[in-house]
């Protein structure tokens, strides 16, 4: 049995090693392409080890460096961090496999650079998950932005460059203009940047300023894609699909909502937030984002754009859970990080598989293609149902808990919003399927078989099913988190 510190070191360094070694392994494409999945397995084992330690009530810690007095680069895993670490590393294994299939099947250029930055992004996501204080969180939040930029602009076309500009300007802009002062504000007011059980802002800050500080965090974390700072996410869809799947449905966006959730639970403290009512405005803003982005998703014919707007809507579920500031809602939010990740990565994998195998990108082109790619569409079906929140798929639990949380907190209108959103989900996620199976074929395409892009979505779809039945560990972690431990 390795020590927890070793596991943390392994989980943080394995992706970094993959990134560093990729250019050297590139002499043999097989070596280079094997590095990602192998690194994923190592990272995942480490994440499991760390999560088990957290379940035992420990707070695994890893001290790296002292920047200056009161500013340390230190990792300390909270239950919430353990959950996010499991999600990011576990899905990386499949995404790395998928990525090989996708990049090869699509004959993409610069595959080495792609693989290297992909691993750097995973490293940054793991570091965000396990960060021991706000400074470390901020540091790796920024590194995550910068490391994904070469992935977004991978095609090096004018469209990719423009999307990259939008991506950087929103993510860097919000983090510098809003998130940084929020972090420094906490530091200046309390003298610390640590995460502490139950939060520590109570009594340290003028209560009238709490909504403002929360606003700085909510909008400063552009990665949570609250409206109106969501535009970067659809823009990022110009990236190759493996990026959209792991990074823009899991690692990057989840780093955003994870940041908000962590700040609410371990800095503000949910009791303090509930008491001051400082998060009420955020509840309504998330409700707005949930509904509006669902409606926009319906209007999108491009599969990836539709999924992107669906992600924006689902991210707001998690922020909603934080804003409701009740234990049940926070549990729901924490679980939704996992459930949505499994569901949405499946959908993106499918979108990419359809593109690689049949070169279709639009929902309206899918008419009658169902039988051509039965596995892909079956996986899509499972992922969609999980996102919609229908049992027996993972997503149903978290949605249910969020609804209970909203009812607990007395927000009946939010129940209506969540219900309405599910209906909209049904429409925009199942429409592609109904077209694929119940319409006449309008385009005859030659389907090239690439098993490496089909197996991962099937696996993640199975994970979505499994998460409905086997989720005690995650639930326990979520409960720990909701108690602010």
């Amino acid at each position, binding site marked *: 049995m390795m020590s927890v510190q070793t596991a943390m070191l392994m989980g943080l360094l394995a992706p970094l090693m993959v990134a560093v070694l990729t250019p050297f392994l590139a002499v043999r494409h097989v070596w280079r392409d094997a590095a990602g999945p192998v690194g994923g397995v190592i990272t995942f084992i480490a994440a499991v080890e760390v999560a088990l330690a957290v379940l035992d009530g420990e707070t695994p810690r890893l001290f790296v*460096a*002292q*920047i*200056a*007095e009161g*500013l340390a*680069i230190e990792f300390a895993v909270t239950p919430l961090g353990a959950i996010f670490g499991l999600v990011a590393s576990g899905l990386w294994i499949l995404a790395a496999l998928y990525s090989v299939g996708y990049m090869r099947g699509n004959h993409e250029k610069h595959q080495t650079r792609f693989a290297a930055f992909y691993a750097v992004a995973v490293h940054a996501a793991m570091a965000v998950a396990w960060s021991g204080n706000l400074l470390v969180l*901020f*540091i*790796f939040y*920024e*590194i995550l932005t*910068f490391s994904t930029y*070469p992935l977004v*602009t991978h095609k*090096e076309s004018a469209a990719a*460059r423009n999307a*990259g*500009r939008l991506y*950087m*300007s929103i993510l*860097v*802009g919000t983090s*510098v*203009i*809003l998130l*940084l*002062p929020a972090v*420094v*504000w906490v*530091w*200046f007011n309390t003298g610390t940047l640590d995460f502490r059980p139950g939060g520590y802002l109570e009594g340290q800050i003028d209560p009238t300023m709490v909504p403002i500080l929360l606003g700085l965090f909510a909008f400063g974390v552009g990665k949570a894609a609250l409206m109106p700072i969501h535009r970067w996410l659809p823009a990022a869809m110009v990236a190759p699909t493996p990026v959209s799947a792991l990074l823009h449905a899991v690692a990057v966006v989840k780093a955003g909502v994870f940041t908000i959730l962590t700040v609410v639970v371990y800095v503000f403290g949910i009791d303090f937030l509930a008491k001051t009512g400082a998060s009420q405005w955020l509840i309504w803003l998330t409700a707005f984002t949930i509904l509006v982005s669902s409606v926009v998703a319906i209007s999108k014919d491009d599969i990836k754009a539709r999924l992107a707007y669906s992600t924006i809507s689902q991210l707001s579920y998690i922020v909603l859970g934080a804003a409701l500031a009740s234990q049940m809602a926070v549990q729901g939010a924490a679980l939704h990080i996992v459930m949505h990740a499994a569901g949405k990565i499946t959908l993106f994998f499918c979108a990419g598989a359809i593109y690689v195998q049949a070169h279709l990108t639009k929902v309206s082109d899918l008419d009658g293609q169902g039988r051509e790619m039965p596995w892909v569409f079956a996986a899509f079906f499972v992922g969609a149902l999980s996102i919609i929140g229908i049992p027996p798929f993972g997503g149903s639990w978290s949605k249910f808990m969020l609804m209970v949380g909203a009812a607990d907190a007395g927000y009946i209108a939010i129940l209506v919003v969540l219900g309405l959103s599910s209906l909209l989900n049904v429409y925009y996620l199942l429409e592609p399927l109904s077209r694929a199976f119940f319409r006449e074929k309008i385009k005859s395409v030659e389907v090239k078989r690439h098993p490496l892009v089909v197996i991962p979505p099937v696996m993640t779809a199975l994970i979505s099913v499994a998460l409905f039945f086997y989720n005690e560990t995650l639930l326990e972690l979520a409960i720990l988190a909701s108690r602010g431990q």
Partner: protein
Amino acid sequence: MMGSVILTNLPALLVAVPLLLAPISALFPFAGLAWAVALVGTGASLIFALLLQSVTETGARISYHLGNWEPPWGIEFVVDSASSLTLVVMSGLGFLATLAARQLVTNEIAEKDIGKFYAAWLLVSGGLFGLVMTADAFNLFVFLEISALASVILIGMGAGTDRRALIAGYHYLVIGAVGATFYVIGVGFIYAMTGSLNMVDIANRIPDAGGSAAIYVGFGFMVAGILVKAAIFPVHIWLPAAYSYAPSAVSTLLASIATKAALYVLARILFTVFSGMPDVVTIALSNVIVPLAVGGVFVGTIMAIYEADVKKLFAHSSVAQIGYIALGLGLGTPASVSAAFIHIGNHALIKGGIFMAIGGFVAALGARASLDSLIGIGRRLPLTATAFLICGLSLAGLPLTAGFISKLYLVRAILETESYVILSLVLISSALSVVYLWKIMEVMWMQPAPARSPKLVENPAIYLPIWIVALGNIWFGIDASWLVSASQMAAQILFDISPGGGA
């Protein structure tokens, strides 16, 4: 003992060694030897500065009396935590700039002029060191002129590749002379009213002068003169042309040490010389320095966004960064002044690296660095371009680089003063700085080099010094303890020297 003789005379040596080596290097007909002399001179300065810093870092104050004349009659050099930190930053970057200069200079300056080039180089360095150490207001003017005239020579030597360097040098000469004249007029007023030229002595005598208008006029002239030298908006107009048409090595030297010395002098004047009239100084800080600083931050950033010539772009960026430092000084709290010192150090590191790397591009391309000529340079000169990228990210304030530490402490200091408008302006401009940086990075990394562009070779003599600076940017982004505590000590010392307090 030899050791203690050197120790007690360190302040004098720091000025004398570069100044005395200057004529020697001018005599050498061989470029390599002249460079070696300059390297010895700047290397020795670095050692002297580090020794001085180690003695003064805990708050000790070294006073050196030139010719053994007692102050306030004689000229006094003072080295304390504030000046020694500035000296270390300047001499450190000065040494690295000299290291890089060897190769950068060969393409830009005729072989026969290289001896003179390094002579002027050493004069600039020695003059600026004197500027920082002197405690005599008039002697400061002398050092100001030594370094300014030598700088004009250095800038003008860019004429070998671009004739516009002559105009740039001439502008600097004229505008710099106006600034120096303003300063010396101010000193005249102060001397007339207090009868002293020693800075601490002036500080002690100002309360006795009883709020006379002449003192205020003198104060205004002195500050205005130094604002010109420090290139603070709107009297920064000499800087963009001077930096961009000077030879690359000179841009490196000026960007990393010249304005830093002037900013240090500004701090000394505001917080030491006129500490006897805090009300007036406070008014000047909040009504003049702060608005000008914020103005500079914006003007510099926006000019940089619209500039296509890369050297000029970073010169505009310097105007903005100088604005941040001036803002730290202008807010006038210990936290903000220490943030200013932190950024003096970090910005020297950032801009030193950036101008060195641009010099590397120019040397390899044989053409001015513009957004067009740098297309695809990332893959043609990967080592230089990567070091440039690191320094650029540091400029943008990416965490784990030196620039982030500056930003962190500056933001905290502004929050402490509760000036939220200034805070938001600073944050917006800081986000905007990513725009001009990204414009270059896109060109360098995201666009393929034009077809049939010749293969370029990287020269270790060019990229090694750049990499030292680039790694320094990372080092000081992760272990900032030394710079932060030295800066906090510097700010404390600046505020402690109050009338009657002496040291």
